[in-house]
Every structure is written in structure tokens, then in C-alpha cells.
């Protein structure tokens, strides 16, 4: 009987020949990560336990992302706790505001997570990194404190679900649409406690960024982790970027999967998750014309350079709709600089969008564009539970960057074709 790539990675990291689904293991961790919100609780847990020696100062990343720059006095004080800790222990992977960005865009961008790794992050979207062919999962702060102290994490080996995508993605369809479609099919707890392995010919058409968008949202299906086998797209992305040597793991042809899906995605239109659940997914045409007050392009899901390029292509020479505000937040400092160089930021500002330094900000209703009562937002982010982006009676549609941008230009949910026309739609190479 064969094994999945995930089982092989977890076996190697727990010093075993093989591991079975459901087995409890102590896994050696390659990289641990916490942010400005989750690190302070980890620090408190370490202090309470009287632990003053950390496992490895070069493998514990602290990335400021959520309430940065500080949104109020309390968040400034909280960030100071994490900052003092990082400086006291001389953590080499400390990314203060201005030095990094959103962790799930930053760590892959800097080549700090590589195929075959086990990565544990105190943030639910830590599953993102699995798109690079590794195991990563989100945990709470106390779990992360234990990793900081020991370099190990207890895990139950997850079962794996297989998702095979066939066909060439149509115009305006990207990783976001594939993952929204998938969550719509299996539901917000459809992958509870499980690993989701994405594969198939369609993935060859997806960039590394688009793949990371897919694994980013496995948590919205309840998944523990996501996995995409490293291939030539991954290798090209890692070239000149990977900070450590790595090993590529592949699932055996006779590996055990607890569920198997196979979809032909040719002809699929862009997908949209309606309020108030990420699995209330419909094709774009079903919601075209719905009124929106605000649009948000950014977050760990879709705040990367290719997302900004698509948006700029649509925005060029146009204005944001009257009465609507459009927030554009490049996910990292590097993406922001690249967008500046390419003239994208100028296009957004000319269009009268608001452009901000890297932060999770509005995605979690933190700051930089919180929604008021009954306001509706179309967002490139990942969650639309009640009150997620602000007031409990506000509403959120989730969509890909092109749909978000097209809607920002009209004030209604809009197909990008209606802005640029079918002839201009980007088609996968």
C-alpha cells in the first residue's frame, strides 16, 4: 500500500518509517510563526511556564501584520510585547512593520518555507504554504508556545482528500475561483481535520501565486492542511529564493485517499461566495448587479503582484464608482515597491482608490476600511462570516481580484468582461 506525500513528510519529521492516518505523532518543526495578535498570548504562556530558553532563534518568525501600523493605544502596547520579545531573544526572522507584510505572502516570497517542510503557524491561514509541497497548519498561541520551547508539535496525521481538476481555466478564472468552487461543493466543514491535495492538468495553468490562493483557503472548508506537489512551476518560483535546501515529496499512485473528486473546469465562470458563509458559492452571473458600498483588494489570499496587475489592467484610465470606496492593500512591502515600479499604484490613485501599506486590516474588520451597519463589501479576502469585516449587520461577497475591481468601478457586482470586453480577458497560457 502506498502513501500520500503528506504522510511521507510527517513520517520523516517524526522519525518513523511510515505514519497512518489518525496516528498521533510528535513532529519536528522546520519553521514556527506567530503574528502581532497571536504572539503575545504565546509569550504569556512561555512566561507563565517559566520557560526562558527557546528552541532555535533562527526558526521562529514573528511577523507584524494584523493591527499594523498600530490602530490604537492597546494594539500599540500589545505589539510592543511581541517586539520586546523578538529583540530580547534576538530572533533573526522578526519582521516589524515596514519590514515585511502579511505573513502568508511574506514567508513564501522570501523563500523561508520550502518543499518537504513542516511549518506551524499561529494563524489559521498558515495552511497557505502547502501550495509549495509541504505540510503547514494553523494552531493557537499555546501550541505555538510549545513549538517555540521544543521545536516540536503534536499532530494527528490527517486523512487526505484528493481534488483533481481537468481542463483549461476560462477567461478571468484563477486559483480563487477553483477554491471557492471547491468549498461550495464540500461545505465549510467538508474537509474538517483533513488534508486537501490538489492536482490535475488545470494546475499547470496556475502560477505559484494562484496555487497559494487555493491552499490559503483550505481552512474555509475546515481543512487542516492543503498540498500541491512541487513541479516546474514551484521550482521556477523557488529559484534564487529558497533559503534552505529542500526535498520534493510525491504521493504514491496507490496512496489512500478518504475522498476523491474530479472536476472538468473548462467553461467555468468566475465564482462568488455570497454572505454570510464561504460555502454559499454561485457563478458570477447569478449575483451580477448586486449593490456594493465598498471593495477590498488585498489580504493573504489575493494581495500579490499578479492580483494588482489584473486590477490595474481593469482600472487604467477609469474612476472608482461614486459613493463607493476601494481599498487596495499590497500584501507585502516588496509587492508594494514592485507595484510602484510598474506604475500600478499610480493607476489606482488616479482612479481614486485608497492605497495602504501592508496590513491584514479590513479583512478581519480590524482597521483601514471597517464596514458600518448594513454596508456591503466585495472582497478578494477569504472569510464572510457575520460581522467579519465590521458591523454584525454588514455583508461580504468573496470574489477574485478581477471581479472585485470591476465591481469597484460600477458600484454593482460586475463581470470584468463588461469593463474590458471579452477580447481583453486574460486567458491562461
Amino acid at each position, binding site marked *: 500500500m502506498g502513501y500520500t506525500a503528506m504522510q511521507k513528510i510527517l513520517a520523516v519529521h517524526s522519525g518513523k518509517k511510515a505514519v497512518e492516518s489518525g496516528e498521533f505523532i510528535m513532529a519536528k518543526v522546520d519553521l514556527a510563526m506567530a503574528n502581532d495578535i497571536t504572539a503575545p498570548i504565546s509569550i504569556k504562556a512561555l512566561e507563565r511556564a517559566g520557560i526562558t530558553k527557546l528552541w532555535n532563534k533562527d526558526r521562529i518568525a514573528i511577523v507584524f501584520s494584523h493591527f499594523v501600523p498600530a490602530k490604537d493605544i492597546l494594539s500599540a502596547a500589545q505589539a510592543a510585547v511581541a517586539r520586546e520579545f523578538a529583540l530580547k531573544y534576538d530572533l533573526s526572522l522578526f519582521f516589524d512593520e515596514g519590514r515585511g507584510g502579511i505573513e502568508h505572502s511574506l514567508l513564501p516570497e522570501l523563500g523561508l518555507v520550502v518543499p518537504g517542510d513542516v511549518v506551524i503557524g499561529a494563524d489559521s491561514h498558515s495552511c497557505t504554504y502547502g501550495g509549495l509541497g509541504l505540510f503547514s497548519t494553523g494552531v493557537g498561541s499555546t501550541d505555538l508556545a510549545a513549538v517555540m520551547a521544543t521545536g516540536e508539535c503534536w499532530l494527528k496525521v490527517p486523512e487526505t482528500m484528493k481534488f483533481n481538476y481537468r481542463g483549461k481555466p476560462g477567461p478571468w478564472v484563477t486559483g480563487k475561483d477553483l477554491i471557492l468552487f471547491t468549498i461550495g461543493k464540500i461545505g465549510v466543514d467538508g474537509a474538517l481535520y483533513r488534508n486537501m491535495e490538489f492536482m490535475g492538468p488545470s494546475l499547470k495553468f496556475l502560477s505559484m501565486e494562484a496555487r497559494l490562493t487555493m491552499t490559503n483557503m483550505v481552512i474555509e472548508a475546515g481543512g487542516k492542511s492543503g498540498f500541491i506537489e512541487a513541479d516546474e512551476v514551484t521550482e521556477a518560483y523557488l529559484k534564487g529564493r529558497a533559503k534552505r535546501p529542500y526535498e520534493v515529496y510525491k504521493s504514491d499512485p496507490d496512496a489512500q485517499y478518504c475522498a476523491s473528486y474530479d472536476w472538468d473546469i473548462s467553461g467555468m465562470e468566475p465564482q462568488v461566495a455570497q454572505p454570510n458563509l464561504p460555502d454559499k458559492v454561485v457563478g458570477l452571473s447569478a449575483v451580477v448587479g448586486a449593490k456594493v458600498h465598498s471593495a477590498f483588494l488585498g489580504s493573504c489570499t489575493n494581495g500579490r503582484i499578479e492580483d494588482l496587475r489584473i486590477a490595474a489592467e481593469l482600472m487604467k484610465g477609469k474612476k472608482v464608482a461614486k459613493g463607493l470606496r476601494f481599498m487596495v492593500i499590497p500584501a507585502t512591502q516588496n509587492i508594494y515597491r514592485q507595484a510602484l515600479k510598474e506604475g500600478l499604484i499610480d493607476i489606482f490613485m488616479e482612479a481614486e482608490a485608497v492605497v495602504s501599506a501592508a496590513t491584514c486590516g479590513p479583512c478581519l*474588520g480590524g482597521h483601514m476600511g471597517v464596514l458600518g451597519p448594513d454596508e456591503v463589501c466585495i472582497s478578494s479576502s477569504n472569510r464572510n462570516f457575520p460581522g467579519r469585516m465590521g458591523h454584525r449587520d454588514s455583508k461580504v461577497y468573496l470574489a477574485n481580484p478581477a471581479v472585485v475591481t470591476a465591481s469597484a468601478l460600477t458600484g454593482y457586482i460586475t463581470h470584468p468582461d463588461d469593463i474590458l470586453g471579452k477580447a481583453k480577458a486574460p486567458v491562461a497560457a
Partner: protein
Amino acid sequence: MINGTAYKFGDNVDTDQIISAKYLVTTDAVELGKHCMEVADADFPTKAKAGDILVAGRNFGCGSSREHAPLAIKGLGLSLVIAESFARIFFRNCINIGMPILECPEAAKDVSDGDQMEVNLDQGMIKNVTKGKSYKAQAFPGFMQQIIQAGGLMPYVKKRLAQSS
């Protein structure tokens, strides 16, 4: 033995509803408890009493990894969460910080708001006194019981570190 009133919530209650992100500027459990579940029910933090029991449907605690969510529940003084199923990070967080939880679909489905409950945590026995029905919750795997018996993850880790040095 836990005795308390049940407060019933639906499926897929996410951590934003348990504790809204705007309150994540503190790690103080009591402070967080003042806003526990207020997105789902604005009056909940004032009407729930210490010892009361939160009952929910499927996938309770989905969404973010914020440990502020179980901390808020603990800070409000609730004694237990019973659900049809839990999201995995929330589940881990509860075990790690010693917030009692029980997974029991039958008990969770049958409960109505205001039911009086009697629960024996060690045995996983849930009694709905109002409805006169008893249920047995799913047992924790042996590995997790070790963490629970140690009093949470950090005491467990300290023990392991002491053994290895």
C-alpha cells in the same frame, strides 16, 4: 460535576462571532469575556452566568486560530461547551488551555435554550435535567488525555523538557 443553564447556538459559529477582531487588543480573559458571543447574541455576555453551558451545532469555532475565543468563553466563566462538532484549531486551543469541551451530536441537537444540564466531565456523561434525557459524549484519544491530565499543554511540555534534560 457541572450544573448550569444551556444557551443554544447554531451551526458554523466562527471565532469572529465568539470574539470580534476589534477586541483582540488584549489578552485578558475577563476583559474578552465581556464581549463573548456578542455578534451572535448581543445580550449573551450579560445574561450568561458563571457555570452556564454553551451548546452549539456543527463546526463550532471555525475560522481564525485566535486563542482569544476559548479565552473569552473561559473569561465569562462558562463551564463547558458542548457541540455536534468542533473546528480543529478551536478544539486544540481548548484542550491546550484547559477549557472543557464535549463533542456529542445527540445532546447538542436535543438541547433547547434554558435547559438545565448536569454534566460529569470525567465520565463524559451529559444529563439534560429539563428534558429528562442522558447522553454519553465522545471520549478523548489517549494522547489528549495526557495533556488534559497534565493540566494543559504548557505543563505537559515542561514535563517533557525536564525528562529530556
